[in-house]
């Protein structure tokens, strides 16, 4: 199996879906001849004339037009250049895309993907570093996925394009070229929904996604050297959430740590903590613990400030130790 990075995996997924189905098209800023600011659509503009479309600099209509196109028998992939710029499209995503099937009593569907590079640690400052998942994972009618590996990214991308519902597809920018992995040549899917145990363990469970999944795996290896067996669960999909895998894991290990880069208060980790408290309380040997970004408006630019914001393998390992010793 060839080893490719996460960005190439997403590009392959888009490419293969476009080759298979003429209804698939991409609409976003700079996606055309430039191939996107991260090069996700590089080479596709020439390969699929008229279907890799540069959008005007207007996020609301990027999503809004894709909603309309989805209702006219096409399969749009909207690209929001940076997740930080998704706010103008919030109304279209939440009020429209997520509610159209429900409000029309099942008459209309919105089969579309909204790709959004998110996350920090790349010197992106306040407006090129944000994590936005909590805003959208709150919304019934929307699916939210956040793959961490090339294999999952490609498989989930294909599932997202085929899904009859709007799917917010979150791509951690720092994983784009940093994370490499084996991806088979043959066609496959990773279903939206199921979490994946990336490292089995016995002493405590860690729940993470995106870049934090990799930091958690690194920290788990550190803890293994110290004699602590950590199970690392990659959530992969935030909505609908795989509650069964989460609860099964924590019932076995009796300790739970949730890690995300988004700031802590009101972050997605609170939902997992509540789930565990409600359904696995009697199995717990320690308080459910969260490690998130600090409650500051967004990630600063200067390196010391950025480092101070980002959860790191070291910070995660420290949280694991504390929990293991409880």
């Amino acid at each position: 199996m060839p080893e490719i990075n996460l960005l190439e995996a997403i590009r392959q997924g888009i490419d293969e879906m476009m080759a298979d189905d003429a209804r698939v098209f991409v609409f976003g800023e700079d996606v055309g001849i430039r191939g996107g600011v991260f090069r996700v659509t590089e080479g596709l503009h020439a390969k699929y004339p008229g279907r890799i479309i540069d959008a005007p600099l207007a996020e609301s209509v990027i999503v809004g037009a894709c909603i309309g196109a989805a209702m006219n028998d096409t399969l749009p992939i909207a690209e929001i250049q940076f997740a930080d710029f998704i706010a103008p499209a919030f109304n279209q995503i939440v009020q429209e895309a997520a509610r159209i099937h429900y409000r029309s009593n099942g008459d209309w569907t919105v089969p579309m993907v909204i790709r959004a590079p998110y996350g920090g640690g790349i010197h992106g400052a306040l407006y090129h570093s944000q994590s936005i998942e909590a805003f959208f994972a709150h919304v019934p009618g929307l699916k939210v996925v956040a793959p961490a590996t090339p294999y999952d990214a490609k498989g989930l991308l294909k599932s997202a394009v085929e899904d009859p519902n709007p799917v917010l597809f979150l791509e951690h920018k720092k994983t784009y070229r940093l994370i490499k992995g084996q991806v088979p040549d043959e066609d496959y899917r990773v279903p939206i929904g199921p979490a994946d145990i990336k490292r089995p363990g016995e002493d405590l469970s860690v729940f993470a996604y995106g870049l934090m999944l990799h930091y958690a795996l690194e920290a788990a290896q550190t803890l293994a050297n110290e004699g602590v067996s950590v199970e690392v669960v990659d959530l992969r999909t935030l909505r609908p959430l795989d509650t069964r895998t989460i609860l099964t894991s924590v019932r076995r290990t009796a300790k739970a740590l949730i890690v995300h880069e988004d700031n802590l208060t009101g972050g997605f980790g609170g939902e997992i903590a509540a789930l565990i408290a409600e359904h696995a309380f009697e199995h717990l040997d320690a308080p459910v613990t969260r490690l998130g970004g600090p409650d500051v408006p967004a990630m600063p630019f200067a390196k010391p400030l950025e480092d101070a914001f980002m959860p790191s393998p070291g910070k995660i390992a420290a949280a694991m130790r504390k929990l293991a010793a409880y």
Partner: protein
Amino acid sequence: MTLTTSDVVLSPSGDGPSLAPETLREMFRFMLLARTIDERMWLLNRGGKAPFVISCQGHEAAQVGAAFALTRGKDFTLPYYRGLASVLVMGMTPTEVMLALFARAADPSSGGRQMPAHYGSRRLKIVTQSSPVGTQIAHAAGIGLAERIKGGDAVVWTSFGEGTTSQGDFHEALNLAAIHQLPAIFQCENNEYAISVPQKLQMAVANVADRAAAYGMPGITVDGTDVLAMYEVTRRAVERARRGDGPTLIEARVVRMTAHSSDDNDRTYRPSSELKRLRQHDPVVRFAAYLQEHDLLGEDAERELRQTIIAEVDAATDAAEQAPLPDPETLYDHVYAP
């Protein structure tokens, strides 16, 4: 052909389009049907049977004229909440409208989930609408974009009030549609009020259509109480769109003959002299006079038509009122498509 404002000198007394007498009578029937349903909804509201009404009164000619220029079952329509007359022309029945008013399970627009007047029907290509205004204009542009990708020749028509043209989605969507010359018709029904806010506090330009120049598309201001002018202007815009020559912004100058909704009282912000004058611009009265003047609809025939429509609306009201409400167990249905 390039449409300009100066092209639009149409009026029933001038160079109207050559429509067959039966088509003209059918247009009038839809206008009268919309008015009759609308008035009935207010009665039901004031009688305590319908919690909410939002009106089409004064907009009938703008919508019927436009909708007659579209191809039913082929072209997409994305009306806003005043779009009763347009959806009737596109195929929605009075009973279906009343089912939505009473929030019945069989309401085709939403199964009783949305407030009344949020029309939608996939079968009729009437796209489901929400309450935040202007979002549908972006959808319309996207439907046009998809039609371009598919190589089809359907056109998309969307409507909205003049207040909505202050929204970013209006600007973003018209800009996109013009860049790609998408097959779209944007109909602004300018009744000069956004709830209580008059046009002069909504924009500094005299006409919404003036904005079209900034997008690079034709913009036309039409007397929206003149059904034949509306038909002709829309017909040209549809031809243009179908040919691949791009979108058109049509500003229909209409009157809002009621308060904003059943929860509003427009006497608190509209001068009484203005309210009295509204009836002089009633598009239904105007077209009835035109048809009589041209011997296309005699007094007896009009009386008979009114009676037929009242009976139809009576039957629709009864059928809808007796239809079952949604089962609470369906609350969780259709959160996600299977």
